[in-house]
């Protein structure tokens, strides 16, 4: 790039300018708008004037506190046992209308653990949002590697010369072609707790040993069910990206490898994988971004339930911004998401940087 033939300020700006302008006007400007809103009390619909409220929205979303309580003791000072374990005073006695604990007003239990006799509670101002963050991370951590790996496997499988291979390519890509909203609608039938296809299939292959499970209605299976469907839906898309990467690798390299007697694994390890470097970065980043934006499946299939087991960050942003008309709170969630993903992608870029 150092060559003087390859420098041209004018051409560079001219060619990148249209895209830059469009993105500035239709993405960056609105985002700054949203950023500014997150520091106000702006409502989606309201005759009230907008006021600057500083970090109030962020405090509301992320506020946490720790409360350690001693077990209930009887008149003699002995710990009261209930079913063999010490009993603790109800958290709502601290967090509701208790003048001694004004900073805990309105908080809820996020998690708790026992240390010695006393019990420590982590309280949060917005338990649902914290749950949404955790769920989103679980989703990303499972989906990113599994989807990328499966997609690569499929791409390798499909990148062979076989009669009719194009048909299989098209079929593997089919779920991508159908909108995620539509796919979610279809899978609701499949996951149905009573007469769903999945239950009937599992029942049939296990001769009835596997009980009927309400996949989307059970807090312990709902997120997993959505993860599985999401991987299934989008894996074909990443297969195509891998495929376009595979196809840039020159056949002469493979021929050379074959002449030297390279095994299949060696071919992959020393020819294919190095040639997929930029593609791998792309696939990983794109999957991560898409996974963090998880929304449509949730909206159609569970609305965040049951018991918040499928709440996600973007679902919360939209539920608040539009559903509950709290556009400033929704914007604050968007900003938090932006910061999280930016941090992660900087780490990703650092990890996948080209070492020299």
């Amino acid at each position, binding site marked *: 790039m150092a060559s003087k033939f390859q420098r041209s300020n004018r051409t560079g700006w001219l060619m990148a300018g249209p895209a830059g302008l469009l993105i500035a006007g239709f993405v960056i400007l609105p985002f700054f708008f949203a950023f500014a809103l997150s520091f106000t009390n702006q*409502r989606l619909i309201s005759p009230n004037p907008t006021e600057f409220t500083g970090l109030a929205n962020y405090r509301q979303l992320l506020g946490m506190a720790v409360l350690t309580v001693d077990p209930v003791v009887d008149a003699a000072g002995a710990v009261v046992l209930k079913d063999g374990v010490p009993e603790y005073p109800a958290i709502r006695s601290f967090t509701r209308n208790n003048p001694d604990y004004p900073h805990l007003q309105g908080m809820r239990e996020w998690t708790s653990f026992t240390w010695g006799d006393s019990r420590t509670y982590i309280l949060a101002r917005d338990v649902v949002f914290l749950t949404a963050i955790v769920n989103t991370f679980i989703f990303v951590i499972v989906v990113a590697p599994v989807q990328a790996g499966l997609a690569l496997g499929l791409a390798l499988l499909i990148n062979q010369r076989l009669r009719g291979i194009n048909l299989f390519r098209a079929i593997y890509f089919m779920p991508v072609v159908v909108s995620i909203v539509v796919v979610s609608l279809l899978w609701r039938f499949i996951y149905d707790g009573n007469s769903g296809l999945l239950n009937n299939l599992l029942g049939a292959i296990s001769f009835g040993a596997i009980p009927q499970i309400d996949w989307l209605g059970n807090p312990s299976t709902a997120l997993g069910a959505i993860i599985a469907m999401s991987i299934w839906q989008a894996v074909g898309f990443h297969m195509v990206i891998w495929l376009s990467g595979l196809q840039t690798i020159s056949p002469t390299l493979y021929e050379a490898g074959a002449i030297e007697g390279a095994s299949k694994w060696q071919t992959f390890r020393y020819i294919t994988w190095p040639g997929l470097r930029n593609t791998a970065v792309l696939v990983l980043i794109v999957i991560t971004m898409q996974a963090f934006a998880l929304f449509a499946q949730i909206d159609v299939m569970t609305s965040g*339930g049951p018991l918040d087991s499928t709440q996600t960050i973007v679902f919360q942003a939209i539920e608040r911004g539009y559903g509950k008309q709290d556009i400033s709170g929704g914007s604050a969630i968007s900003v938090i998401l932006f910061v999280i993903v930016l941090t992660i992608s900087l780490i990703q870029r650092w990890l996948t940087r080209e070492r020299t």
Partner: protein
Amino acid sequence: MKHSNWLAGAAVAAISLGGAAQAQTTLSMWYHGAGNEVEAKIVDQIIADFNASQTDWKVEMQSFPQAAYNDSVVAGALAGNLPDILDVDGPVMPNWAWSGYMQPLQIDETLIEGFLPGPKGYWDGKLYSIGLWDAAVALVTRQSYLDELGLRTPTLEQPWTGEEFMAALEAAKASGKFEYAFDPGMAWTGEWYPYAFSPFLQSFGGDIVDRSTYKTAEGALNGEAAIAFGEWWQGLFTNGYAQASQDPADRDSGFAAGKYAFSWNGNWAALGALSTFEDTVFLPAPDFGNGSKIGAASWQFGVSASSKHPEGASAFIQFALQDKYLAAFSNGIGLIPPTKTAAEMTDNYKDGGPMAVFYDLTKAQALVRPVTPGYVVQAKVFEKALADIANGANVADTLDAAVDEINADIEKNGGYGH
């Protein structure tokens, strides 16, 4: 003679047409019924009749699919692009009126004296919207089920008590004939929850928000009555009377397929139930201590605040209030006509008609949802609380959290103008 008559007629027609084209001011109108052919036909008819009935105004309609309608209106308002006439779901009206999207109607209020209370949309003492129908919910079952299970048939005067209702569910469950004794309609997420289930809470003596001030939900949604309601609600699911997660297909066809003994459903589904089982009966809501309650208010018409011709928009709405149109909607889509005279013109709601009971139910028991701009948020909070409790969440904690969220929202909105 004949010939010249024809010519004269044509000339008159041409003049009046030309005159109409010049003088008629166009009024735009948004309606939520896209995709519903029967409804669209009736609305089109009213518009055509209105446009032909006078020379000042010409209404043009844009229809939207219902699921996208509210978002479209909010977006339209944000972009400064609302029509003259719009329709609005009854409980949402105060939100739009308070936000300055709507203006009071200019219609002769003596015309609506005979209306059921549900279709009349009052906010801040003024009439902002008026409905051409109401909707009601009833406990749908079959006479044969009642007979087999040996249950008393409840009446409007003597509805089932809470205990009788639970005994009925227990009998249905014990009979082993049904997948579930009761189908509350859990699959219909969204507005169905507050519309259909908050009357139970009110019958227990609680409410979504304290209606004396509309400034807090404390006590109303987490007081003793509300907690009793919550425990009862949770019991429906933990005791196996109902399923917490239901698929939409079961909701649509489960009762017809004999999966449920009792279905909590609206009058819009009544025609279908009647055509499946001739002995379908519609029972009043059980009384949990504070009387039988059901929800009221459905879609209504109003005038947008930005309309430059509110008198024309109001004229159209007033025109639509004729009994023949009220009856047409009822006959077409099974809705409850808002006047007795219109009810007498319908097949289903006239005295002795198969659904006349709904008219009486609405008249006797209907309670509108909280009349406050905050209802839009409160409905969402209530829905989530009920879903969580049905799925096993701690009742008192869940209701406390709901109260906190509702109160925080009221505070954030400066009391919503109450």
